[in-house]
């Protein structure tokens, strides 16, 4: 077994283990951390497939941004885990059955007899100095320009939708208005009152 193959199995085994842990942990923070582990291992797999840019993007975007956000939300919200879990055991038999059926189908359809190395030859190794990022950029901005533009529009719609659905002026919110804060004068806030001295009661 070559070293690369060995690495593949190591990454794959940890990936599957982490994925199982994600859905079986009671504590959502643990689940999220195992998901991070799963992402790191899939990034490793991509690295083995010479897709360096995707591997880095996965770590940067998913681990660095999405999962941090996710953890943030999990910690901020007070979620009753027991309530969420209630359906899990009840639905587990059906879910397991479906999962097993899916695995069998997958093995039949995308198993090694159809997509093995003798069916689909491995791509030739890239020469030294080959830049994955550059090639990807070229493809994105030439061949897939149209798709790239539509993806940009989708992001714009995401922004419009998020702002449109959440931003609203509520009369009871407390917010600071910096321009009013800096233009405030001492006499607006402080009133000096002349009064006679009080006698001790």
């Amino acid at each position, binding site marked *: 077994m070559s070293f690369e193959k060995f690495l593949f199995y190591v990454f794959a085994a940890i990936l599957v283990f982490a994925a199982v842990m994600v859905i079986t942990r009671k504590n959502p923070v643990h689940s999220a951390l195992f998901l991070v582990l799963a992402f790191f291992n899939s990034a490793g797999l991509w690295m083995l497939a010479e897709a360096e840019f995707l591997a880095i993007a996965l770590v940067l975007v998913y681990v660095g941004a999405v999962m941090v956000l996710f953890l943030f939300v999990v910690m901020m919200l007070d979620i009753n885990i027991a309530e969420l879990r209630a359906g899990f055991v009840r639905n587990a038999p059906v879910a397991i059955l479906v999962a097993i059926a899916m695995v069998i189908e997958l093995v039949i359809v995308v198993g090694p007899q159809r997509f093995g190395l003798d069916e689909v030859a491995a791509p030739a190794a890239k020469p030294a100095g080959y830049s994955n990022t550059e090639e990807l950029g070229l493809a994105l901005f030439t061949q897939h320009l149209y798709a790239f533009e539509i993806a940009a529009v989708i992001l714009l719609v*995401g922004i419009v*939708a998020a702002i449109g659905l959440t931003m609203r002026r509520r009369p009871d919110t407390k917010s600071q208005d910096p321009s009013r804060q800096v233009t405030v004068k001492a006499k607006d806030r402080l009133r000096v009152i002349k009064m006679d001295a009080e006698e001790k009661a």
Partner: protein
Amino acid sequence: MEYNLASLQPALPEIFLLSAACLILVIDLFLTERTRLLTYGLSLAALAGAVALTLYAAGPEREILFHGSFVRDPMSDVLKIGLLLISLFAFVYAKDYLIELDILRGEYYVLGLFGVLGMLVMISANSFLTVYLGLELLALCLYALVAFHRDSGAGAEAAMKYFVLGALASGMLLYGISMVYGATGQLTFPEVAGVIAGGDADQTVLVFGLVFIVVGVSFKFGAVPFHMWVPDVYQGAPTSVTLFLGSAPKIAAFALTMRLLVDGMGSLVEQWQNMLIILAVLSMALGNVVAIAQSNVKRMLAYSTISHVGFIFLGLLAGTDKGYTAAMFYAITYALTAAGGFGVITMLCRKGFDAENLHDLKGLNDRSPWLAFMMLLIMFSMAGVPPTVGFFAKLFVLDAVISVDMVWLALVAVFFSIIGAFYYIRAVKMMYFDKPIDTAPLAASMDTQVMMSINGLAMLGFGLFPAALLGTCRAAFSG
């Protein structure tokens, strides 16, 4: 390829609509509550401009752009014009409703325009990647629109259901696409079709992918057994959104099916034909039967949509140009009919009263004879009563099915349409023979009334002279 104005001409409607939507988004920021209607006017102008540019770019030839990811052909021209015009109706009907509910905000029309753009992208898609991105663009706009009325709990619930099930459907579709890509190694439809026709692709993987694609498409169409979201979303969404959701996207869904199944996997027709037969029969049966039991008119129309989707599938599964023509005719006329049907319901709404029950239609003739007559035409068209257009749409579909020797399927379709006629005619009976419960005067602005009259009379007009529209649809497939 070189990018200049001449080479980009086929994509002008999309480019124009995108620029217009972005411009309106910015202009809207500077508008106050009183001048908000400018956004509405500009959105209508954007749609009208896109229609003009579609006509300008139209032609009998097939043009491929952007490295094979975009196609402009006669079919896309017809569908785009139909789609843009029906969106125009949807935008006009929405205005009064939004004002009454006090939710007239610029984002409504901007999201609507982006949704229309997504549908245009789907219609003109020539690769799996484009079709998927167009679908997502449309879906994202629709999710946000369904949740647009933020004070409505039902709206939020509907949006959540729609979002989760829509994501599931996208996942299915994407999974199927990945299978087909794995089997053929190609993303653009003509190349995929070429590889499949060449017999080089692995048949098992291909059919497996096809199943997932058909499942994804039926989810988006709302065909039984993937219809669970339709009634809840139709009921929970603001009526103006239901109107938009239930009309124009049916044309886009037709285009999606045409592109994926016919352009991409036309030689697998025998496989998908059987799948579509099951979906069509189940949709017609369940849609028509369950609609009878509904007391909420939006829910009733949702089940009616499901049954009409069955009819569109019926035309598609014939697998002939005649069938595609009939299905296209059906999709366009149904979208127009649905727009009118929901349009009447939006016109019954007023401040603090959201008409959504069947008995809100009672005595409509006493309140507004003209509106009742329009609704009569629309209901008759949905039921398929001659001389309205719905009759001819059904006739052409049945004719196409019979000409491929599937008489039993035509009989099933007729049987369930007769059952379906019951609840449409019941609505007509309520309008004309029952006493009104609610006697508040119906006030609609001029533009809504004009559009509603055009919409209702179009049911009659296309019914009396179906040849013009049918000829246009036929020309789309003769090339």
